[in-house]
């Protein structure tokens, strides 16, 4: 065996503490009764009550859900088609097209936001929830593509071939054999795309117009205007929601 030095374990545990402590502290202090200081002054649910009464917050949550839902549907539809097209119908110059499709994953996010904003302004499309949704679908598409394609590659091609040999049309072979096998990966990518869209700040920041405040934009404006325990409470809720969605996504991709 490799010599296992105890400092490796301690360094790893310390690393995990570094990763977890800030989030746990944040959640803990969402129950702190003190409005101003970071000293513990007793348990309260007051900040959660204030959140529940916040009309603007509720609107921003609806906006976020709407954008996430529509952009995920568009990205999934286009992404699944593209994954099949790339994986099952190879062509010359495929490498170039593939790298171009993964572009959103490597260019700085701010560039994507800014260039989209310029584009919308120059084609005179008013910045609104629609432009936000279009942008979200664009950065979610490659994510769906990568996940679904990985799944397609792992499928045994002889399954579809067997269906064809038994007289199925190409469409029947696809829809009755391949598609059902892709469903878990599709759900996994749907949940991931949905979460990423819910969480996105940068692209939304540049492509949103007046009246199209999403949840992250609302959180940003809250943080900008000062630290309050209400933000802690909202953060705690967001932590739980994100983790649930991603956990479900991972479980589905593994199936």
């Amino acid at each position, binding site marked *: 065996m490799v010599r296992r030095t105890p400092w490796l374990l301690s360094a*790893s545990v310390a690393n995990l503490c570094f990763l977890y402590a800030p989030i746990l502290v944040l959640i803990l202090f969402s129950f702190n009764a003190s409005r101003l200081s970071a000293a513990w002054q007793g348990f309260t649910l007051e900040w959660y009550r204030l959140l529940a009464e916040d009309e603007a917050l509720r609107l921003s949550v609806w906006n976020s859900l709407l954008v996430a839902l529509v952009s995920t549907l568009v990205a999934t539809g286009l992404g699944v088609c*593209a994954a099949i097209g790339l994986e099952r119908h190879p062509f010359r110059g495929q490498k170039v097209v593939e790298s171009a499709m993964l*572009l959103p994953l490597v260019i*700085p996010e701010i560039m994507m936001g800014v260039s989209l904003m310029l584009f919308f302004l120059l084609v005179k499309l008013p910045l609104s929830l629609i432009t936000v949704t279009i942008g979200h679908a664009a950065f979610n598409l490659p994510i769906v593509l990568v996940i679904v394609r990985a799944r397609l590659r792992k499928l045994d091609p002889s399954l579809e071939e067997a269906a064809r040999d038994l007289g199925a049309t190409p469409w029947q072979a696809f829809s009755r054999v391949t598609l059902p096998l892709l469903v878990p990966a599709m759900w996994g990518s749907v949940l991931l795309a949905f979460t990423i869209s819910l969480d996105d700040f940068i692209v939304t920041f540049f492509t949103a117009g007046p009246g199209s405040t999403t949840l992250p934009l609302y959180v940003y404006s809250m943080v900008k205007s000062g630290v309050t325990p209400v933000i802690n409470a909202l953060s705690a809720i*967001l932590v739980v929601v994100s983790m649930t969605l991603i956990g479900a996504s991972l479980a589905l991709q593994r199936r």
Partner: protein
Amino acid sequence: MNSPTRPSDRSECSGEAPASRRPSRLLLPALVWLGLCLVLPLFLMLAISFASRGTYGGVVWTLTLANYANVVDPLYVRIFARSVGLATLTTLLCLALGFPIAYYIARLPPRLQGIWLLLVMIPFWTNFLVRTYAWIFILRAEGLLNTVLAGLGLIGSPVDVLYSETAIVIGLVYGYLPFMILPLYAAVERLPVALVEAAWDLYASRWAVFWRVIVPLTKPGLVAGAILVFIPSVGAFITPDLMGGARTMMIGNLIQHEFLVARDWPFGSAIGLVLMASVLLGVVTYLRAEGPGARPAAGG
């Protein structure tokens, strides 16, 4: 399904099917969407970067190189240098913090590896704004750090950490550390244990084992991790915006300022393109120099 795949096409080798056909029509919608929302806007930006600013913002289409000439103004060069410096520091810190845990995880039994990797990833799934806010909550003058330190009687007056370059680096390291751990883990996992043992058997010092065996053999992971941390750090906007002060502007803030505050789109475009071009150029040059063997595996 328009062009049916005959079974014989794929029977010889599933990876390399004959690449003679034209792209499937299934690809078209995605290509159009990404072309319109991604490629076209970037070319538009390129075009605008050679135009000039109108009196009230907007774009006047006269060909000029003035925007690029402005980028080398010492004021902006300093912002570029700060961004590159802070991103480099972030990358190095992520390497130093990430390597031990990546190495530890890769040498665990497979079942435990999955659990540890999950533990590393969980905090990362939290919204970036929330994670940034968590550090603001800790570091600000009336924050947790100062409250605790004062409570212990260690400090008389609050230490000012927030709104500084230190705060930005903390925020960036916290934000992107998992991007470093995952590719490092993948690289260490592929490292043959026998080679490390051989080095020990030949009386290599701990130092020599690390620098002359482990580091060269895990280089693809090191490079991949460094790229994945450096790119978002150098173009960061949220972290310097919320955790930095007026004197710690980074390129991301400058771009945002030019577009939304100064409304100088041509200059903002030029800055953005210089940022993107230098990042891509750096990455490509590095990968070329290292040869195909050093190409990092995507993700972890």
